[in-house]
């Protein structure tokens, strides 16, 4: 009845675990194992999301004809407004391409977009990650940018076969390059681990004001250029400190979004991602 000798097995398990940790952190070789196990873990995430899904389905079924018609009218109005904006965008885009050709710089192509649903949130308060219902089967790749309708949400850090793990921009280990939309001042935007973001190493004299929109720069080749990321909420100048203390709030609704967009920038091919880079953000 009693086990033969658990000490040897413990030794085997410890050695295996340590090898795996090193491989996972330093090399991409552990990815196949993670990928294979992903087939077994994804159903759990889908199952955990089932009550939410069926709840949404029920509300949809129980809605009255009137409210559906009202929603339909509202969406049609919204579509009309958006189409009108897109018309102007087409002209601007063509103009932009012409100007870029004059400058001899590469043209920005339309990004491929994939819609995904959030099916899980990381239970660990130390880490801010989401699980989405698209994986490598839907051409999701590691390092892909994730957005909602209002702005940038984060990036894919682990693409499983049926679901993927998304690191939020507010995670404490995440940082990215942004610029102020108004004047192009560049800075590093880091997550705080809470709901806010911090602008790092900004000189006290930099021209950044409250309410400024921060957009992605595309430097680091992880995020596509020009997507809104955050809005500056608070600037504190401390006498004696070399840098200003600037906080920002993400424009994306990180805590409320249920559907997200995955974009693949087609301007430049993504550099191969190693484990270390991905966990460090950009």
């Amino acid at each position, binding site marked *: 009845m009693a086990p033969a000798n658990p000490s040897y097995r413990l030794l085997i398990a*410890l050695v295996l*675990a340590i090898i795996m940790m090193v491989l996972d952190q330093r090399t991409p070789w*552990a990815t196949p194992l993670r990928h294979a196990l992903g087939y077994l873990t994804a159903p*759990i995430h889908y199952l*955990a999301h089932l009550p*939410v899904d069926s709840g949404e389905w029920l509300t949809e079924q129980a809605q009255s004809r009137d409210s559906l018609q009202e929603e339909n009218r509202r969406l049609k109005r919204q579509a009309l407004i958006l189409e009108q904006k897109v018309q102007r965008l087409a002209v601007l885009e063509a103009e932009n391409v012409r100007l870029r050709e004059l400058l001899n710089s590469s043209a920005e192509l339309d990004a491929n977009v994939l819609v995904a649903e959030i099916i899980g949130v990381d239970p*660990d*308060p130390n880490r801010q990650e989401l699980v989405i219902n698209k994986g490598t089967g839907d051409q999701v790749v590691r390092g892909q940018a994730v957005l909602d309708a209002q702005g940038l949400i984060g990036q894919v850090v682990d693409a499983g076969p049926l679901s993927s793990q998304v690191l939020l921009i507010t995670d404490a280990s995440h940082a990215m390059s942004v610029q102020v939309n108004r004047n192009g001042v560049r800075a590093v935007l880091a997550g705080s681990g809470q709901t806010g973001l911090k602008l790092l190493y900004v000189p006290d004299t930099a021209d950044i004001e409250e309410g400024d929109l921060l957009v992605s720069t595309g430097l680091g080749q992880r995020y596509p250029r020009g997507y809104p990321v955050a809005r500056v909420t608070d600037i504190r100048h401390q006498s004696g400190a070399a840098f200003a203390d600037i906080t920002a709030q993400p424009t994306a609704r990180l805590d409320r979004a249920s559907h997200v967009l995955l974009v693949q920038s087609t301007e430049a091919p993504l550099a191969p991602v190693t484990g270390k880079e991905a966990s460090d953000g950009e």
Partner: protein
Amino acid sequence: MVNDRPAGTGVIIVTLLIAALLEVIPMPDSLDWVRPEWMLLVLVYWVLEVPGRIGVLWGFFVGLYHDVLVGTTLGQWGLSYALGAFVMLAAYKRMRVFTLIQQCAVIFLLVGTVSLLAYLVQESVGRTLYPPYTILYASLSSAVLWRPVCALLRWVQLRFLVR
């Protein structure tokens, strides 16, 4: 016992998968702090009941599954669960004669130690934000829930004849 052949591996796996579901089921942010280590509780129960079969390597693979499920470094929970299973294998005879309070205390210490080990790994890859004493909340809730989990699994064990 007339028939001592091992049986019910499937049942054990199903209970572990249900625990995995409880690990990721959405909860309010404030309750995430006290989310018990469901998979560890279920694993410990089976180690105590069928120590001949469920041991260190089971702990390792269950932990590995946990790693992929929540997206931590591969081996972080694998290592911790393997060690937890080892400790329980060494103490399963004593655990059977312990009173309820003593059992809960052991579970509290075990969950705390195992979580601390996982925390150390997570710390070394730079993915921790809150101080390590925060794992005490989960250890406490795990200890409190040990008895109900035990009763439920006992019923499962008798109903499906797991040996």
